[in-house]
Structure formats: C-alpha cells, structure tokens
C-alpha cells in the first residue's frame, strides 16, 4: 500500500488535534472540579455567603478554563487549516504541535483550579476580604497559566513555520522533540505555580493585612517555579531553529528526540517541587509576616537546589544536541 505525503500530513494533523484536545481537557476539568468541591465545602460551612462563594467559584473556573481553551484553539487550527501540498516533514511538526499543547495544558489546568478552591474556602472564613481574595486568586491563577502559554507559542510556531528545507531524517525527531520538551516541562511548572497561588489565597484569608508580602512572595515563587518550563522552551527553540544536517542513520534522530524528552520529563519534578517550596514559604509568610524576607531567602535557596536536576537534564539535552 502506498501513502502519499498529503495523506500522512492529514493523518498527523487529525491525530495531533485529538491528542491536543484530549489531554488538554483533562487538567482544566480536574482543576475546575477542585474549585467546585471546595466551593461546596465552603457553602456547607457558611450557608449565608452562598451567593458570594458561588460568584467567586464561577470566576475562578472561568480563568481555570483558559488552558483548555488554548488547547481548543490549537486543535481547531490543526483540523481546519489547509495543509495541502505540504512536505512530509510537516506531519511531524503537526503531531509535535498537538503533543505540545495537549501535555502543556495538563499542569496549568490542574494548578489554576487550586487558588480558586482556596479562595472560595477563604470567603467562608473571612467574608470581609472577599474582594482581595478574588483579586489574589485571579492574579495567581493567571500567572500559573504561563507554562500553558509557552506551550501554545511553540505549537503555533510548529504549525505556521515552513519546514520544507529541513531534511526529513533526522528533522522529524527534532520537531517532535521540540513539542515534547515544552509540553512535558510545562506540566510541572503549571502545577507548581498553582500550589503557590493556592497557598497565597489561603494566606490572605488567614491574615488579610499581609496581602502585600503574600502577593510578592507568591509571584517570585511562581516565577522561579517557571524556570523548568523556560528550560523546556529554550531546548524547543534550539531544536526548531538550529540547522540540522541530513543523515540516513537512526542515531542522530534518536539523539534529538531524546533531547526533547529529557528536558521535558526532567522539568516535571523540579516544577512541582519548586511550587511546593513557594507554597510553604507563602503559607508561613501569612502566619509570621515579620520574617517575610528570611522566608523568601530560604525559599530561593531551596528552589535553586531543587532545580539542580532540571539543570542536569538540560545539560544532557544540550550534549545530545550539540556534541553527539
């Protein structure tokens, strides 16, 4: 049976769209479910405030939905853009785009539901600070979507750049690797950012006066927790834009695919871990805001150490790309 390139490109586009929306729906749904569960819990504790809690739940869920909306945009683009006459290598790019956006939406989807839930619960505890809680929730939830946005940027690049000058072998591996690198690395960073944001909402309800140091600690912690996703983005860009010599053998292709996998998988753990550090620091800034500076310093040291494995993974990836 003979396949012509157009059929394979179409197959890759539809497979990519399916993977993208399938994975992309998982995270946001879990996150929104968590928000709703906490909202129910909160209503049961303080029935008088059910109106406020309900409003806050809806707003939080609408923001948590963003990650899956990004996945939907990419899936629709993959399905309805016209790829006729595209070279065979486009198939790899489209599959990579679907993988990247689908995996990338997982962590951010779950993570951005956490602040929503904590804010609903916080309203039941401290109704007087509802406004501050909602603002804090929106900021935290929006910032922890940054990894999903990185994934969307890489997916859009994979869809719209013309790769016809890239040799098919080992170019296909570079493109799928580029998608996997950002997509996988975004899982950890997205979830980690959510842990920090959730702790911040909890903290605002506990100690409304400390809202300034709480927001600052949360933002710094989230920014550091996003570093693994930035490593993933960096490796993706190197894989996308570095000219690759054609080669008939399998080894260079596996090296490039493996480089993407390595930074991607390696970013998951440090992303989650950094988020937990930031969450712990934020939680204790709320209890003892006088030592916010000390806590921030310890948080940064702890995060730097916990990031070392992500750096090892990136070093191995760079060796795989440039040395081998």
């Amino acid at each position, binding site marked *: 049976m003979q396949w012509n390139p157009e059929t394979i490109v179409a197959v890759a586009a539809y497979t990519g769209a399916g993977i993208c929306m399938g994975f992309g729906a998982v995270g946001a749904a879990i996150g929104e479910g968590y928000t709703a569960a906490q909202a129910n819990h909160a209503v049961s504790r303080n029935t008088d405030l059910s109106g406020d809690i309900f409003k806050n739940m809806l707003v939080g869920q609408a923001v948590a939905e963003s990650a899956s909306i990004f996945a939907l945009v990419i899936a629709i683009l993959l399905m309805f853009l016209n790829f006729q006459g595209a070279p065979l290598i486009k198939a790899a790019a489209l599959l990579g785009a679907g993988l990247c956006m689908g995996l990338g939406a997982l962590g951010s989807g779950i993570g951005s539901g956490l602040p929503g839930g904590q804010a609903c619960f916080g309203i039941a505890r401290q109704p007087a600070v509802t406004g501050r809680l909602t603002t804090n929730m929106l900021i935290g939830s929006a910032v922890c979507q940054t990894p999903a946005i990185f994934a969307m940027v890489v997916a859009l690049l994979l869809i719209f750049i013309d790769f016809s000058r890239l040799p098919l072998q080992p170019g296909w591996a570079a493109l799928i690797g580029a998608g996997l690198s950002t997509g996988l690395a975004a899982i950890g960073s997205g979830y980690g950012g959510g842990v920090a944001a959730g702790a911040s909402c909890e903290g605002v309800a506990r100690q409304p006066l400390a809202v300034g140091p709480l927001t600052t600690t949360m933002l710094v912690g989230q920014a550091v927790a996003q570093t693994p996703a930035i490593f993933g983005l960096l490796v993706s860009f190197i894989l996308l834009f570095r000219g690759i010599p054609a080669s008939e*053998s*399998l080894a260079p292709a596996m090296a490039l695919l493996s480089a993407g996998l390595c930074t991607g998988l390696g970013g998951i753990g440090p992303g989650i871990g950094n988020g*937990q550090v930031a969450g712990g*620091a934020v*939680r204790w800034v709320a209890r003892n805001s006088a030592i916010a500076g000390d806590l921030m310093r*310890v948080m940064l040291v702890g995060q730097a150490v916990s990031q070392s494995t992500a750096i090892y993974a990136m*070093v191995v990836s760079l*060796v795989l790309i440039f040395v081998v």
Partner: protein
Amino acid sequence: MAIEGADLIKAAAFLGAGIAMGLGAIGPGIGEGMTAAKACEAIGNNPNEAGLLTRTMLVGQAVAESTGIYSLVIALLLLFVV
C-alpha cells in the same frame, strides 16, 4: 533506509540517556521541594534557628539529590562510553 546493528545500538543508547535523565530528575525535584517547604515552615515557627534549619535542609537535599546524580552518571555513560 538500511538500519545497521551499530546504528541501532547508538540510537538506543541516546534514547536511553534522555529517558534516564528525564525520568530520574522527577523524583529528586519533588522530594527536595518538600524538604524546602518544610524548612520554610520550621523557620516560620522558629526564626532564631534559621541558620541551623537551612543547614539541615541543604544536607537533606544533598542526600535526596543522589538519585538524580546517579541518573546523570548513567546518562553520561550511555552517551559517551557505550
């Protein structure tokens, strides 16, 4: 496209290196994060002992890091020796 034995072995070694370092980095990252989170909590409880607590945290993290370093060693061996 003819795939020879030596090429296949090289390809498998490269793929293995990536997977080893990638998966191996997940555990230490999460574990060290938990350590540091607890250290923040402890310093919040007892700010005067911040130096001692930071030292304990760093030693604990260094031990937790060892599996990550094993992964790195195996990945580099797969890349350059095998």
